[in-house]
């Protein structure tokens, strides 16, 4: 029956990282791996959802008000003129918005440029649609974009560039110059862009999230995807959207309708309430996450990590293993689970081998096994508990004392 699987499905394999997941579960480890909060969602939004269920908003639904509000926000945040009747598709989470966008524009053989390291789902989606993912490595330690690397990766077959900013896993917020570089390439090569902006409201210090679509010549070729999940701590509600020029938005809606037909109805209603949250909500969201970020930076610095790059946004910190420690990322996390009772994500899964670049540039890619992603979207209690556990393992020098174990 193996032959019954599609070629694409067969190319995906379950990962040895799953073993770590099971190990973490067995050890009841403190979870700094998963990208979702362990604190409650905002009360006013839950109330809105409950009210929607009670008011019988439970059948298939398209909530135009949601589109209206998204258009308003696009104007306010990015100066974009979006037609709420034609330019927006409401989907089951950003995941589905992205999948529908990919299926809407990618034909077999189309190349799609992505920035490495990157969230893993993009590649799988592109491959499923018959596209060819092409990775451009961002340069550590600050994950800067080298325009030459980008230019070398674009060809006549490049259909689109995928941009996730603020970025998972690095927490990087692409700078104005970098965005301009990407925009320039899109314009010159007549590529489309698909953005994942789920962390758009989680930026720190004076960083402001700028949408690629707001650059000259970009709105007409950009599909913006985002969702409620991270902004409102409701990752389980599955309400997301795509904003794109009418023709493409229409195509995305067509696809979405065939994939799931409708995002959960009561949560679309609740989304209206969520998006109407006062500015104070968004400010306190930023403040809270910033302090959590600072806390975890300090905590990791205290156990020997040299945090070269402090996240500028998102809910993740991508930390390089201390030089003195010779373990790989997987080994380190394994020990972290077993000895410290804390779990994080080995970074290697976010990197993709780009063989041609390796041959041409002779660059050293060994750093790809030296990073660990920590999520700080956790309650203060969780973070404090993690700090305590890790603190217990510190040597006098303050470095985490990990001994590779036998099993």
């Amino acid at each position, binding site marked *: 029956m*193996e032959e*019954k*699987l599609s070629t*694409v*499905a067969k190319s995906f*394999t379950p*990962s*040895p990282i799953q073993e770590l*997941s099971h190990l973490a*579960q067995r050890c009841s480890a403190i*979870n700094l791996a*998963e*990208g*979702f909060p362990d604190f*409650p969602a905002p009360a006013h939004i*839950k109330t809105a959802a*409950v009210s929607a269920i009670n008011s019988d908003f*439970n*059948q*298939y639904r398209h909530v135009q008000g949601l589109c209206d509000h998204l258009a308003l926000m696009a104007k306010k945040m990015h100066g974009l003129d979006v037609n709420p*009747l*034609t330019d927006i598709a409401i989907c*089951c989470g950003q*995941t589905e918005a992205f999948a529908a966008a990919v*299926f809407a*524009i990618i*034909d077999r053989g189309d190349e799609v440029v992505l920035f490495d390291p990157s969230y*893993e*789902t993009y590649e799988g989606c592109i491959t499923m649609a018959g596209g060819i993912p092409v990775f451009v490595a961002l340069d550590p330690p600050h994950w800067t974009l080298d325009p030459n690397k980008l230019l070398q990766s674009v060809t*006549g077959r490049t*259909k689109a560039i995928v941009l996730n900013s603020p970025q998972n896993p690095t927490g990087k917020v692409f700078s104005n110059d970098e965005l301009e570089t990407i925009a320039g390439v899109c*314009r*010159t090569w007549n590529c489309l862009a698909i953005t994942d902006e789920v962390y758009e409201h989680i930026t720190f210090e004076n960083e402001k999230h700028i949408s690629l679509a707001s650059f000259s010549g970009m709105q*007409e070729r950009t599909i913006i995807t985002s969702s409620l999940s991270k902004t409102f*701590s*409701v*990752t*389980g*509600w*599955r309400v997301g959207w795509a904003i794109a020029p*009418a*023709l*493409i938005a*229409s195509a995305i*809606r*067509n*696809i979405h*309708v*065939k*994939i799931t*037909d*409708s995002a*959960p109805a009561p949560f679309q209603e609740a989304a209206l309430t969520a998006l109407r949250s006062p500015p104070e909500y968004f400010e306190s969201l930023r403040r809270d996450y910033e302090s959590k970020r600072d806390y975890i930076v300090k905590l990791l610095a205290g156990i020997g990590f040299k945090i070269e790059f402090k996240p500028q946004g998102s809910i993740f910190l991508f930390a390089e293993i201390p030089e003195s420690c010779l373990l790989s990322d*997987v080994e380190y996390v394994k020990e972290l689970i077993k000895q410290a*009772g804390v779990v994080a994500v080995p970074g290697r*899964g976010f990197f993709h*081998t*780009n*063989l*041609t670049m390796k041959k041409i540039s002779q660059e050293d890619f060994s750093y790809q096994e030296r990073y660990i992603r920590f999520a700080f979207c956790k309650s203060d209690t969780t973070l404090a508990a993690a700090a305590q556990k890790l603190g217990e393992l510190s040597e006098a020098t303050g470095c985490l004392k990990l001994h590779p174990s036998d099993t």
Partner: protein
Amino acid sequence: MQVQCTWTFPQMRFRHSTSTFLSLSKHLSESFSVRIGSGRGRSCGYPSFVPTMSTVSTEKDTVSTPSESIQKTPQPLQDVAELGVSLVLLLLPSRESSMGNRVAKRLEKFKTTIFTQMSNLAIKHGAINLGQGFPNFDGPEFVKEAAIQAINDGKNQYARGYGVPELNNAIAERFKKDTGLSVDPEKEITVTSGCTEAIAATILGLINPGDEVILFAPFYDSYEATLSMAGANVKCVTLRPPDFAVPINELKSAISKNTRAVLINTPHNPTGKMFTREELNVIASLCIENDVLVFTDEVYDKLAFEMDHISMASLPGMFERTVTMNSLGKTFSLTGWKIGWAIAPPHLTWGVRQAHAFLTFATSTPMQWATSVALRAPDSYYEELKRDYMTKKAILVEGLEAVGFKVFPSSGTYFVVVDHTPFGLENDIAFCEYLIEEVGVVAIPTSVFYLNPEDGKNLVRFTFCKDEETLKAAVKRMKEKLMRK
């Protein structure tokens, strides 16, 4: 403080093992060798077609959807090129700058504008809507309460990708009760955003481009569209009135060793037909003989009125090759919650889960918890559901017959199809327009459910998933205004 680890997402599933790395790398290096040979100036043959995309709505649109324009002409890009850039452009691959050809070829098959037209007309004329396939009454309190409880209990974050364990267990229990089959909730059940997504994930996970898949027409509109997304080669076997029986000989010549899968919807939308044991046996033996998979859409299984619902998976030799799909929406009148599932042996489930992970990744958490409560509803719930629907059906069918339609027997679902030709309109779309404009009632023209629309032009579909007052009012209007010509 210890938090339960539910490490569930694709970002955890890295291709770490070297063997997979090699196969991946090979894939990448193939594409790179193509690239290195090319460069700027290589012309790429993008098709110059301009798809006439319309903003689509399906039968699922509420009446309150604002009108959307039917046709959209693509706007050409305004390339404001400076001198330097324009020189570069001369060297670039010749590519139309219009947005028209940016949209994927697979969308050529996405054609449903009819529901948009009908919805718009319906609003304009204040028509009673017996077209939309969803109730105008709400789901049961105990299920809604369970969802509210889940939200308030903080069950608002990502669920395990293939389903909240409670729900997988409840689905397994229900399936056992319904079919006698024991399935492993961990390995053989995948929760999806509605049955629509179960279908999409099954097809994208298990069908290769060029694979032959057999559909029975008329069919629910997402099947053909999703199959075209997967690049499948669709073959159609048409079910015909009056009983929409499976034409066995036609089926026998359609299925061969080249067939990858057969898709069965029973009870069947739009006709209300239920596949009999004899029909399923024939299909089963053909599938076993030719090593064909079966995908079944059984969302109306609890609305089985004239005979018992039979799951293909329960026939001898069939579980190992069948994906059985179902959902919450129709059984519990909560069509907007989007909770569905696919039950299949582990090797097929694996394919479904791969696709699902990239389509939606996880399904609405609070609704999953509520569904686990719903599925444990006592027998009395299901009995009452059937009784209610049978009463509604009687109102509609008696009314339609009295008005002069030829009504075909419908054994299940909440649909009936009727022959409208006694009224002298040229085809199903013309009839539906007339019905909205002159009578004030909405039905759905069934030609959209066929590969060849001609096959459906004499038929229209009515639904009775409406409260009794609505049904009676619609019947009254038809009696008053629909004159037999």
